[in-house]
């Protein structure tokens, strides 16, 4: 389409920029904040341009902007090979949006060791975009692992009281999952003719028994990241300890790596097993949703509650994608898979505002304990307003696109098996615990001796920006679904559905 290597630019502008930002920050700290904002905005503009081109070309199903394959490790199947389809493009778009917002939010909330912080932010952005557009399994793995290092330091250096424990737990959990996943990739490489790690060349070529083993292995990697209950225990700790902007990255982008992996690898190249054993994944998905919702209900820490909501929402992704691949009708399949991808996009924005807000609340009120936060509607009216607006996004009420995606996933699931209709309870539970939280914090009486500071206007604007895509996509869902639907159809047909 174009001669400019737009995907490489998306990856390497932040990575190269990170060094620049660090050096600038050594000169003067304010400079590194401004420079990171400029770089993330450039990346956002570029990804919007890329997305616009893809949307206009209506080629969401096939890979566009392909670069490579260029030989990287001679004769070993490791190539530098990039490309985007509807799935990657929408996730790259949300990554670049969140990066801008996270940099903005960090201006207020991060006060120490700024140069290295913004260095890591940009390194994280570049490598996560790399994850989303790698078409070679090893390249994918390389970016996948680079993401760990900034996150380890984010939690460990800028985190809360139990940051060391949380950082180590995060690192060990995700690394164990990743290396087992790597074994799965090696299996795929060795037992497919011709031997290759390139995803487009693997479609439909992998023998069934290899698919089965590889699915088990990759489940460890993707399942820890998503996270799937019972592999989720690192997540609440990591979220509670991480600073608010990093929680946004963690929930908004890092968890998406899991969802992306399930759709790209399991649905894309391990399609036969995914279709045949979809019920296993679906069961895990429903378990994850219920676990997240029920445990969130009893939390006292606002941030922990949001973290568990995140688990609950990501269960929809697992449910939707595997319900879609095993659906009996094309319509159901498109609902399921597109719904799952759409859900990832919406969840990133909705959970982003909630986490960032929890950071501001913690900064201003000195606590995140739901029982101690009282009378916000009088004490901090602006915060209360944003909290209600954000909670509505978390509840997926029909003023945001998150409603659409959950609805699509549930429809897709019901089209597979009417028993899956049980999942309509999940939004109900979610609404219940969010309303209860609002009742306790916003609608209660303000104790007399407490004096809160309210949100600054700039922070409020920064928070409300998260809601813009959610509004916009409710009115025009085709902005995302237009590139995603053809892909869902292709994945479904690739798995032998719709015949």
């Amino acid at each position, binding site marked *: 389409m174009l001669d400019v290597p737009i995907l490489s630019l998306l990856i390497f502008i932040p990575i190269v920029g990170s060094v620049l930002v660090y050096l600038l920050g050594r000169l003067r700290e304010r400079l590194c904040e401004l420079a990171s904002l400029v770089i993330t905005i450039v990346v956002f503009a570029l990804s919007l341009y890329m997305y616009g081109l893809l949307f206009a070309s209506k080629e969401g199903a096939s890979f566009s902007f392909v670069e490579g394959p260029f030989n990287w*490790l001679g004769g070993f199947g490791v190539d530098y090979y990039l490309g985007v389809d509807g799935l990657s493009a929408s996730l790259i778009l949300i990554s670049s949006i969140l990066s801008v917002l996270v940099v903005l939010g960090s201006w207020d909330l991060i006060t120490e060791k700024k140069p290295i912080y913004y260095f890591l932010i940009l390194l994280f952005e570049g490598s996560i975009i790399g994850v989303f557009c790698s078409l070679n399994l090893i390249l994918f793995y390389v970016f996948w692992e680079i993401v760990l290092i900034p996150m380890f330091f984010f939690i460990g250096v800028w985190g809360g009281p139990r940051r060391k424990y949380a950082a180590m737990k995060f690192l060990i959990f995700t690394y164990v999952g990743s290396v087992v996943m790597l074994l799965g990739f090696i299996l795929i490489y060795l037992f497919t003719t011709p031997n290759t790690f390139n995803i487009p060349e693997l479609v439909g070529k992998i023998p069934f028994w290899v698919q089965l083993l590889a699915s088990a292995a990759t489940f460890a990697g993707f399942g820890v990241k998503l996270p799937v209950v019972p592999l989720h225990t690192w997540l609440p700790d990591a979220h509670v300890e991480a600073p608010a902007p990093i929680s946004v990255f963690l929930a908004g982008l890092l968890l998406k790596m899991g969802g992306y992996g399930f759709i790209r690898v399991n649905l894309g190249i391990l399609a036969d097993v995914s279709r045949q054993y979809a019920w296993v994944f679906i069961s895990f998905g429903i378990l994850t949703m219920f676990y997240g919702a029920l445990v969130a209900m009893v939390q006292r820490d606002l941030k922990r509650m949001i973290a568990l909501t995140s688990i609950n929402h990501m269960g929809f992704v697992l449910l939707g994608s595997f319900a879609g691949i095993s659906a009996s009708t094309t319509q159901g399949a498109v609902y399921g898979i597109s719904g799952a991808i759409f859900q990832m996009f919406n969840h990133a924005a909705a959970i982003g505002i909630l986490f960032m807000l929890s950071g501001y609340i913690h900064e201003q009120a000195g606590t995140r304990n739901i029982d101690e936060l009282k009378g916000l509607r009088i004490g901090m009216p602006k915060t209360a307003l944003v909290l209600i607006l954000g909670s509505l996004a978390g509840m997926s009420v029909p003023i945001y696109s998150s409603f659409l995606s959950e609805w699509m996933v549930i429809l897709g699931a019901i089209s597979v098996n009417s028993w899956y209709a049980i999942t309509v309870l999940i939004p109900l539970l979610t609404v219940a615990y969010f309303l209860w939280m609002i009742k306790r914090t916003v609608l209660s009486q303000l104790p007399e001796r407490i004096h809160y500071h309210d949100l600054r206007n700039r922070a409020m604007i920064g928070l409300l920006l998260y809601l813009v895509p959610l509004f916009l996509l409710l009115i025009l869902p085709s902005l995302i679904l237009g590139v995603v639907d053809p892909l869902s159809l292709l994945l479904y047909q690739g798995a032998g559905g719709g015949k």
Partner: protein
Amino acid sequence: MSATILVLEYAVIYTVGSLLASMLSLSKKAGVKQSAAFYASLAVLAVSLAFTLLNIAIYLIEPKPSFTNLFHEDLLSYFFAITVQLVSLFVVLSSRNYMWGDRNLSVYFSLLLFSTLGMVLLAFAADLLMIIVAWELMSIPTYVLAGLRKDNPFSNEASIKYFLLGAFSSGILLYAISLTYGLTGTTNLPAVLQALQASATRLDPLTILALALFIAGFGFKMSVVPFHMWIPDAYEGAPTTISTFLSAGTKKAGFVVAIRVFVVALPFLSTNWTTAFAILALATMTLGNVAALTQRSLTRMLAYSSIAQAGYILIGFAVATEPAKTLALIGVLFHVFNHAVMQSSAFLAVAAVDRTIGRASLDSFASLWRRMPITSFALAVSLLALAGIPPLNGFWSKLVLFTAAIQGDMAWLALAGVLNSALSLGYYAWVIKRMYIDEPTGSMGQSRIKEPAVISAVLLAATAIIIILGIYPSLIYDLAKAAVLALG
């Protein structure tokens, strides 16, 4: 060039340099003595490395392996010659800071050179007798080097333990060689292969015994469990530069002879030694990693980590038969090179801390990045590389080794390998946490310390190699592949 002449040239370069260095100890002025010895050894290593690179270039333009009765010249020899000389260069350079002011420095440098010559000879050796001679030339100077600080009881203990077990292993090796000679009537490796292939009694108990003795003999140097007991004590007691030399240098020499003997000379016994190596690999990496998790001293932790890394390399030996032979050997060579660089970097970073702060217990690493940013950075990068995090060099060689294991029908070994990698991150990341996340403890200051200049330069060079090979692994992979394919 004939292999004998080539080896002779190495011998002359090193012997002259080494004798020069030790003769300088006759000088009256202490300052002259150590500086002169240092620069003499530096010059020898520089000349020899340049000579090796030149020869590789000539060899690559016109590849013709040359064999004599005692030596053969092929890419495998050059590959190891480069690796071990690079490690020696790192060690000699770092001694400028670490050992400076110690007694007997000219002897120190002289012995280092002799030991390096032993390793280079081992890389070229094609005859069992030559192997044992080179083996001793490599080992005996290191016994002295480990005990160089004769006032330090730990150094003495290290030296004695190392010497006793080392002498024992040489004896075992000699016994294995004499058995082989008794069975085949020759000590020349290609001839051994022919004789054993021709004989009908290839699987008689004596052959198996010889095989087992070879594994045990080499195993001492390669730090294979259960022959690893001397490693942690020796590495901790010896001067840290010497620990670097032992773990990154002489250990690698064990692997080159193992390739020569097992893969080249005894391939038809593979059903026996592959299983043995698989079990040893599993035991070595698991024990190394589990023991490393519990250490309180960073030197000991790195010693156990070095044992674990030997376990990964042994995976390559376990599957070094068709169909995975090529890939497995590439993995072995690749990881040997990578490990030499990573381990040198890690150990020398510890040496820098040891020199400036004085204690290498894990407590002195708390919040190290404030005080020694270069050292902390280099140590963090080398530890991540040792753990196998991409895009650093250690990841690629592990990837090749694990792929070879699955290809060679030992998927369980690959699984054990990746789980061990995950386990190892537990202690590697713990050190990183200590350096970058933990608050400084006790009386440790927070102000920046002047880092030893030469060690810092070496560390930066090693870090650069780690990162460059991580981004562009083909540099060494292709060389390793060519070396393996030339073996046939």
